[in-house]
């Protein structure tokens, strides 16, 4: 059972681990290559749109991978290489969009929702706690109930 589960898990994970980088693209310098792979993972493929260029087989993705490597060899920092491509394809090409007025909602929504949820929880819990003492009957209510019960018992045969 455990083995089957493990195998299924692997099967599901494997496709995501595959990169589309072809052997002829890989740089001789392992440090530069590692940086290129890092950058590629932050760049969106403009054809497939929900894939990064590191795992996309599209022609443009390959061109961009080559371009990134070229920029690194030319001495660019990671940020400069990203900026170079962003200047041509816009914010859209970044899988991690910059924090700016048009993306405030995108970046802040999760936090706002979390705070909102916590707020509602606190409210509900505190109300539940404060209401409990009110649920106890007052002295006059207590005696009224006793009276009613006594009457009920008396009328019963």
């Amino acid at each position, binding site marked *: 059972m455990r083995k089957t589960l493990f195998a299924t898990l692997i099967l599901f994970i494997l496709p995501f681990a595959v990169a589309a980088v072809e052997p002829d693209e890989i740089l001789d310098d392992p440090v530069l290559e590692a940086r290129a792979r890092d950058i590629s993972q932050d760049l969106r493929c*403009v*054809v497939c*749109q929900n894939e990064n260029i590191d795992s996309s087989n599209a*022609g*443009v993705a390959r*061109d*961009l991978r080559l*371009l990134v490597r070229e920029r690194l060899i030319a001495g660019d920092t990671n940020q400069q290489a990203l900026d170079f*491509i962003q*200047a*041509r*394809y*816009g914010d*859209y090409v970044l899988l991690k969009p910059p924090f700016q007025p048009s993306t405030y909602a995108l970046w802040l929504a999760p936090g706002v929702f979390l705070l909102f949820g916590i707020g509602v929880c606190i*409210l509900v819990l505190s109300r539940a706690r404060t209401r409990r003492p009110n649920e106890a009957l007052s002295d006059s209510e207590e005696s009224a109930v006793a009276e009613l019960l006594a009457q009920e018992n008396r009328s019963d045969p």
Partner: protein
Amino acid sequence: MTRILATLPILIALMVGGFFLWGLNPDRDPNAIPSVLISQQVPEFDLAPVAGVNIPGLARADLTGNPGPVVVNVFASWCVPCRAEHAVLTRMVERNSVRLMGINYKDKPEDALAWLDELGNPYERIGSDLNGRAGIEWGISGVPETFIVSGAGTVLYRYVGPVVGPEAEAEFSTALAEARAAKAPRT
């Protein structure tokens, strides 16, 4: 407090409803990729002519200092929609005296030559972008893509995909008419 809580469901319903209205709007194309080039200068590029084709190549200098707007079409012989679009572009050049420039994207020169021989050549200039580098400068995601560039060299409009069919052609003609009108008062 209770009153605020009571209005919450309505508020949430309004927010979700508004989001749906925006998302389900048939005019919204979620796949549209905004081009950074719009209202910017034509990118730096310099392409040699396609080998064997008897017209000059295309560079940035050719797209600045024109008397009116020009159309830049990115095409390739291996691109099937380009074949359909070719007839539309040819018609525009013949009937509406559009000035059409071409970027031959990642195409073997002999294939491009055969393609133009077969279908005719409406282009004034064609640059051969063998490695797709000029394509990256233009920020294209595939072929065909068509740009309208003002006479001064500002990119005014970008159409992704083939300009084929009444809707696409109407949209493109409108953009072209606007480009021509925008140019008129200044000259």
